[in-house]
């Protein structure tokens, strides 16, 4: 117990003194997860709008499938993306394996179902009259989607934040696609896994505390947005 307590104190010290390794890993982690959330949002929010607004056969089944994929195991996504971008895969020529760019793409794929699904839920809550009013005033389909997203922007932002949280806290894609290369693709979650296995508990705990703090901030932001 004493050892854990001492490790905890040393972890705090690493954070307070802005240990270069801790700062570097945290910054990279935030950059990759924010980029993946941003990339996913660019595609998933309009796509969610399109699915919500259009009437087509199999829409309910598609929404069910998207919702089922919320809990998609991260290692499964990691495996699929690995097969796609590995040297012999269809996208192998881009050289994305074991790069931050590959991790961003992988995490964006991972968080897509949750972002699309929550966007659909958010937009479904906007009244039909808003859509009809925009249409009657001459809006195109994409303009109607933009209006509806604007009306539901708090819930849409919450969807994007949840996606960011999932990207930040996942291990499978980061490990399999990034390869946990020191100074290049090592992020908070993969570092914690590695440092713990190496017995470097104070660094693990410091990174773990940072991860929990970021999650806490995301949660507070979500509560604030939803409470408005």
């Amino acid at each position, binding site marked *: 117990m004493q050892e854990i307590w001492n490790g905890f104190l040393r972890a705090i010290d690493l954070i307070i003194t802005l240990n270069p390794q801790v700062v570097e890993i945290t910054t990279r982690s935030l950059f990759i997860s924010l980029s993946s959330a941003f990339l996913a949002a660019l595609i998933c929010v309009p796509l969610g709008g399109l699915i919500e607004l259009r009437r087509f056969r199999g829409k309910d089944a598609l929404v069910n499938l998207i919702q089922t994929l919320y809990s998609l195991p991260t290692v499964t996504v990691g495996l699929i993306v690995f097969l796609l971008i590995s040297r012999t895969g269809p996208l192998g020529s881009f050289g994305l394996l074991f790069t931050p760019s590959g991790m961003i793409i992988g995490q964006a794929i991972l968080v897509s179902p949750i972002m699309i699904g929550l966007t659909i839920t958010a937009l479904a809550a906007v*009244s039909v*009259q*808003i859509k009809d*009013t925009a*249409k*009657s*005033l*001459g809006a195109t389909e994409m303009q109607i989607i933009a209006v509806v997203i604007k009306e539901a922007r708090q819930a849409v932002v919450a969807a994007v934040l949840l996606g960011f949280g999932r990207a930040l806290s996942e291990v499978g894609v980061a490990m399999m696609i990034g390869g946990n290369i020191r100074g290049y693709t090592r992020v908070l979650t993969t570092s914690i896994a590695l440092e713990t296995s190496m017995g470097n508990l104070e660094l693990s705990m410091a990174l773990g505390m940072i991860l929990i703090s970021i999650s806490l901030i995301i949660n507070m932001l979500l509560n604030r947005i939803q409470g408005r």
Partner: protein
Amino acid sequence: MALLEIIDLGKTVPQGKVLVEILKEINLTAERGEILALIGPTGSGKTTMLRQINLLDEPDQGQIVFDGIPLVGASEKVRLSARRRMAMVFQKPVMFRGSVQGNVSFGLKIRGRDDHERILSALDAVHLSGYEEREAGTLSGGEMQRIALARALVLQPELLLLDEPTANLDPRSADSIDRIVRGLAREMVAVIMATHNMQQCRKLADRVAVLVGGRLAKVGRPDDVFSDKEICDQIFCGNSGGL
């Protein structure tokens, strides 16, 4: 040539497990500069008809011809182009988030235009000058109704569809709406107005179309329609005496 021609229009909607015919074999025209009142009891299909004309819903049968262009079954590009020459004000208008100015300028902005003078003029027409920066969602029902009208007026439509335009308004505001509608007709705008207000109908309409149970029971000048006792009894359950 009539600006709008409705040919054999029919609309069926599912209500539970039953398909209900809301509109049946509607044939009607509207000319430029004409005010056409749509009257009939609640549930007779007035709003549904306006929605078909505004291309918000697709009819199950028939054709809507706008300025010579058939719109049922037409491409989205053709329909959008026609829709942009019309405007509709709903019975219970909703406001977009944001200011009154943002709401009134919506239609202009999506057309890539912004004309501040025209926005101010539309607000002035509905007696809401100075409301530009007000949050639209905080306005009263009557004010929202007038903002919705300004939102349509600013687009200078060739065909204006009004669904109970004065239902939420006090007599003074209702009078000003009536004056606007008359002014629009003088500018050769075709106005189709669904209403329960028979006095307004008599005062404004050039022609009246009576809908009963989704069918056109009569179309004619207000005096002709309201002097037809059988039609009045049929539609208004005998409460047309004061007309």
